């Protein structure tokens, strides 16, 4: 049970198919297409509907607009693909409350483990890469239930609802397990994520929120 290698990937099509290419990604089931995330340079971005798939990453960037009332699910989700120089859309991210093709779909984001683990892997969100605190405004400002980032595990099935609520992400207090048991062998773990911004939201200026994978090996 040596330390497994992990690879983050996303499906940049509206086709709900599994990542059959494992760590390499590429063409997946049902005409899906899986792209490996460059952890050093790429970024996950929740943006407004004005942003289009393939827009240059050096061009205009349209942030989510805080609603006058109620909550707003970020209309579109992208990966800022550094090497390709574009915002690459993740059409199946989020729910039907968003502005793309999200909903009761299973294969959106993946973490591929090339070997077993000693315990269940978790996906978490923290203020920064020191993992010392999860009090950023985007993570609920100290109230995990108010985190704007909400995720759901889809490793063993779709959410079951096109408007899934998800689990607010904030440190170890509020996180998602990516499977139901420790991994016995190499495996793709799947999840979906959305950002929901309430009308009362005030963002931080210098936010450096990170998504973090936590797992065990021996």
């Amino acid at each position, binding site marked *: 049970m040596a330390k497994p290698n*992990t690879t983050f990937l996303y499906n940049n099509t509206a086709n709900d198919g599994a990542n059959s290419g494992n760590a390499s990604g590429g063409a997946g089931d049902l005409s899906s297409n899986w792209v490996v995330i460059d952890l050093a340079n790429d970024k996950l971005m929740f943006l407004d509907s004005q942003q289009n798939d393939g827009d240059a990453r050096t061009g205009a960037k349209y942030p989510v607009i805080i609603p006058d009332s109620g909550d707003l699910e970020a209309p579109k989700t992208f990966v800022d693909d550094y090497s390709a120089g574009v915002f690459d859309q993740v059409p199946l991210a989020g729910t039907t409350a968003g502005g793309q093709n999200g909903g009761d779909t299973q294969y959106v984001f993946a973490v591929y483990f090339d070997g077993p683990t*000693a*315990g269940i892997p978790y996906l978490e969100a923290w203020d920064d890469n020191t*993992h010392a605190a999860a009090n950023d405004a985007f993570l609920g400002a100290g109230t995990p239930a108010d985190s704007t980032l909400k995720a759901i595990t889809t490793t063993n099935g779709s959410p079951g609802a096109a408007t899934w609520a998800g689990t607010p992400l904030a440190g170890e207090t509020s996180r998602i397990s990516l499977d139901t048991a420790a991994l016995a062998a190499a495996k793709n773990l799947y999840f979906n994520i959305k950002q929901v911004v309430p009308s009362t939201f005030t963002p931080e200026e210098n936010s450096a929120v990170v998504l973090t994978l936590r797992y*065990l*090996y*021996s």
Partner: protein
Amino acid sequence: MHIAQSNYHLAWRLRARFAGNRPPREYISRDVRHADPGWGGEVFARPIRRLEFFLPTGHVIVLAGMRRYNFFAEAVQNLSGGRTHVAACWLCGHLPDRDLVEMWRITKGKIIRQRKPFGREWGGTAIRGWKAGAVGAAVESRIREAA
């Protein structure tokens, strides 16, 4: 995990001492901060009598008399980049007379001791990698100065 420097030659290593007098009488891991601990890949021929984890301060965490033993590293990988790093190490012993697990977590200058039900040690689910212990000896779960 912030890496403390130490000249103590066993620091950050795990030692399992086996029951009986036949060799090998013990197993010593590599430095678990920089290499795979090796625990998961080892197949021990005899049950473990005592499991020790050595700290750079010259102290050692000792588990003995347990029904089963386990050891693992807790790793974190950020989606924003940087290499995977070890956030904590865990030393575990399944108590002989109760379905509880003694768990020691060594992380960022802190050592936390806790007990969890066997089979629900990590997020309410089971951990893998248990190895048999030699029951019958006095139960021990403590930190002491290394000899």
